[in-house]
């Protein structure tokens, strides 16, 4: 008799033990789900003060080489809008002139980033073709500059724009070295890294980046990449598109139409 009772108690103990085990093992997972749910909800709502929700956008730019006249208004306006130092060598965007001669020589120049215009240089060699290439931060989807930042001061925002947190940047210049497009520079006064932001202060207020705004020949197109009605999607559909340095797998979001093979 006693033995039986003992066995019953043992069974009861085992049942309790299993119950507790189940609760203990499931509880953290359940709590985890609750927590992450809250986190997800919080993310969805995250917006700027003016109601701009970064997650709803994915910005990109299209540049038509055939339309660029090399007037340098984009580079000039960019300096005005973003308080870029006026000295040469500090540019968020600039225009390069390519001259390809019949002996295969390729000359690339960009005096003062094209702001003061270009000079006609006469050589005896016959020029095969020549054109202008506006350059800008490519806002890579897989940005090498963000990978190397040791403090998390440069980052890809949720709308795909690569930004620099100048209050957090320590000025180590790793990102400047890492950028394969030479789109970054160290601001001579603040000693922090700087680069194109697609005029973030403008695009968050439904305005165009200033280089797109002032381009006299509409060589630059700006818009959403994942909305069918955007002018950029139309641009991508209507043109043969090239990107700079595709072999690096940086997945640029600046797309060039009529890009020449010689453009690096």
């Amino acid at each position, binding site marked *: 008799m006693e033995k039986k009772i003992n066995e019953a108690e043992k069974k009861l103990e085992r049942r309790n033990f299993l119950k507790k085990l189940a609760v203990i093992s499931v509880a953290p997972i359940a709590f985890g789900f609750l927590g992450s749910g809250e986190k997800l909800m919080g993310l969805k709502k995250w917006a*700027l003060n*003016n109601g*701009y929700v970064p997650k709803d956008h994915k910005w990109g730019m299209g540049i038509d080489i055939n339309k660029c006249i090399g007037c340098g208004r984009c580079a000039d306006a960019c300096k*005005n809008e973003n308080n870029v130092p006026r000295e040469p060598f500090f540019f968020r965007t600039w225009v390069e002139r390519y001259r390809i001669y019949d002996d295969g020589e390729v000359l690339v120049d960009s005096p003062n980033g094209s702001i003061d215009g270009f000079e006609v240089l006469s050589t005896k060699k016959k*020029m095969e073709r020549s054109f202008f290439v506006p350059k800008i931060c490519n806002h890579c989807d897989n940005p090498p500059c963000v990978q190397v930042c040791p403090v998390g001061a440069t*980052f890809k925002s949720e709308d795909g724009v690569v930004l620099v*947190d100048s*209050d957090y940047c320590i000025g180590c210049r790793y990102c400047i070295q890492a950028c394969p497009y030479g789109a970054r520079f160290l601001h001579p006064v603040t000693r922090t890294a700087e680069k194109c932001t697609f005029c973030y202060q403008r695009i968050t207020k439904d*305005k*165009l980046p200033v280089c797109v705004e002032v381009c006299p020949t509409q060589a630059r197109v700006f818009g959403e990449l994942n909305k069918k009605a955007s002018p950029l999607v139309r641009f991508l559909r209507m043109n043969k598109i090239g990107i700079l340095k595709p072999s690096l797998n940086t997945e640029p979001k600046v797309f060039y139409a009529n890009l020449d093979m010689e453009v690096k």
Partner: protein
Amino acid sequence: MKNFLAGIPEQVKRLSVLLVILVIVFIVVRSTLIPNDFGKIGHYRASAVQNIANNELHYAGQEVCVDCHDDIVAVKTKGYHKNLSCEVCHGPSIKHTEAPDEFKPQIQRNRSFCPTCHEYLPSRPTGFPQIVSASHNPRKICVSCHNPHNPVPPVTPKGCEACHAEIVATKSLSFHSEIPCTKCHVANEKHKLSPRDNLPTKPTTREFCGQCHAEDANSPKDIPRINMATHEPRYVCWQCHYPHLPEAQ
């Protein structure tokens, strides 16, 4: 319990106290060094996005100008400059939208401004209107002849030489100098305004040149004659002879 504590070696107790202190110091230092909103949406400060978006604007944008200056916009939308934003020439003017009387946008009047786009450069796309400013009325300012809001040449070119100067110069040396361009090319009037959409015609048959150069043609005697039947019948004349300078080989 006491037995349990007593069982732990002294050095383990001391080390674990040290460990606890180290962990606390790490947590305190980490929480003071790393901003609160770091990692809220990604590996960066969430407030940085707001800071960058708060940067000051300098350019108002075309759509703001349109609200007040509808008279100028009405002129501009009809001309070649219809796609130009106002601030390309007038400079950053968001202050003008806030205080229209205090801040006046710049007005470009000197001769150096228009050539930033319109100076001749071989790299510019063909068809874009360009001048050589050194020889293009060097003493006049651009706006004295061209209205910048609706720029057209002050006189629409009457003859072909305005654009095709090189061909006209070549032709003037040749025996064909007396033949007007329109004898061989039929140019639509619209060709003057949008040249590439309205290309002039070219002679497509041998018989066209034969009007003068055939053996039986009714033309002055000193014009060279050929036998239309035997003189390379498989080719159109201009495949071998350059009509603007036919004596060149």
